[in-house]
């Protein structure tokens, strides 16, 4: 059986008094892509943040790559996860510095990639090598997303949490991102408003709303059997 990379067991999330997710079960196997659909404010981003240990979990257990999310493992889990928001922060003046930044941290010390490695990844994402010397302030939203993805790939991350990433990408860039993620057997959990992922056959679809996370790949009868809870393997 394929290794589960992201697991939610009876997870409940709340934002203030608002219930975002109640007793949700969810398993995403290695190399799979899952997309969570739902209206703005339903808790898609909060769920992704909870998996990264950035949003409090009221109840239940989250496991990433077999590690249960606890204060002790949060840092290790974050080293395996890449969180790509709509418009990521570069945290450096130039793109090259942005790509090298995480390698100044203790967790990645001594693993700094050379310029050739950076260029290779950037080109796979339809970005020219000259972008390395561009100022971060002058990048478009889509360019920032692809630089953030390149940074995650250089860090050797294997799990991607993508928060509405496709909204800033043109068709060619979307294809490039998808091809890169597939070629390396990455696990991707994305939240999305748009239909980009719907065109891809090998994507699992879920809908988040009213505290439930429901699979859209199942029939209504299946959902009834699950009593409103969702689990996909």
């Amino acid at each position, binding site marked *: 059986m394929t290794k589960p990379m992201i697991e939610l067991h009876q997870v409940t999330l709340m934002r203030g008094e608002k219930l975002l997710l109640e007793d949700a079960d969810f398993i995403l196997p290695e190399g799979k892509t899952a997309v969570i659909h739902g209206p703005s404010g339903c808790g898609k981003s909060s769920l992704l943040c909870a998996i990264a240990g*950035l*949003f409090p979990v009221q109840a239940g257990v989250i496991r990433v790559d077999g590690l249960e999310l606890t204060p002790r493992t949060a840092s290790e889990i974050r080293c395996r996860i890449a969180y790509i928001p709509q418009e*990521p*922060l570069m945290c450096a003046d130039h793109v090259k510095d942005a790509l090298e*930044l*995480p390698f100044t941290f203790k967790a*990645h010390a001594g693993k700094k990639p050379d310029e050739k490695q950076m260029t290779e990844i950037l080109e796979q994402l339809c970005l020219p090598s000259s972008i390395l010397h561009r100022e971060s302030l002058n990048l478009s939203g889509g360019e920032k997303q692809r630089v953030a993805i390149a940074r995650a790939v250089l860090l050797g991350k294997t799990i991607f949490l993508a928060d509405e990433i496709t909204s800033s990408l043109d068709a060619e860039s979307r294809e490039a991102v998808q091809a890169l993620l597939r070629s390396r057997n990455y696990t991707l959990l994305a939240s999305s408003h748009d239909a980009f992922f719907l065109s891809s056959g090998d994507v699992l679809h879920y809908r988040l709303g009213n505290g439930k996370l429901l699979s859209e790949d199942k029939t209504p009868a299946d959902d009834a059997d699950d009593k409103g809870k969702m689990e996909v393997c």
Partner: protein
Amino acid sequence: MAAGSPIGITPLSLLWSYLLLLPPLFISWKWGLSINRKILTAAVRMTVQLYLMGYYLGWIFRLNSPWLNLAWISVMLIVANIASLRQRELSFRTLFWPTTIGNILVFFPTVGFFMLLVVQNTSPFAAQFLIPVAGMLLGNTMRGNTIALEHFFGELRRNPGEYTTRLLMGATPAEASQPYLYSAMRLTTLPHLAVMATVGIVAMPGMMTGQMLTGAVPMKAVMYQLALMIGVFACRFMAAFASLLCARQVAFDEFGILRPEVFYNAGGGKNGPKKQLSSGMNASSGKK
């Protein structure tokens, strides 16, 4: 009056200086600026506070007990720290001890260094020197601390994106908060450096003026002023740095998230600040 003779200020001559308040009061009244009450309140408060200070300093100077002097500057340090935390949105309960420890670690060695090597009086604990020097250092140090702490935590709260982005790239909370710390240190230091760079050109330092008015020759007053300004800068810089490092130790929870308890009014309920953190990862306009 001959150079080097002190001015013999009397209560009556002091009273004349208060007449200088009349033109501002008149202008404020005539133009309807509505600050007459504030001017009068500030003048009265200043007079009462400084007279009280004159009385208790006179008492401390007469006793001249090393232990009492040390106790006095310890009380000054604690009161100043309380005042600097109470003025801002920061939580006194969470940050009092870390910032006090940071200040103690810097303040006492700096004062000791200054008294032993710069003032070089027979007794480094002499009230006449120790209390004014400690007061000068402490006043500036607390202003510096207030700016540094307010900026560090304020920015982490308002713009958490860079912190969380770095955290998600594998940084420890200390590594992730580094840009906020640098920026807080720059903010608290640069205004003071600007004063140092322009002193003597566009402004006459208060302490130096006071010394000359009491009869000191200008070059002697200049030397004291230089020594004190360097001491103030060093103490302010190091105390801000130590306070930030100590406060940072208690600022994040076990997941590396900024604790709401750091702020006097956390707001947003239990999950408020964490929600802000998660939503702050997108670049806002102008952010690189």
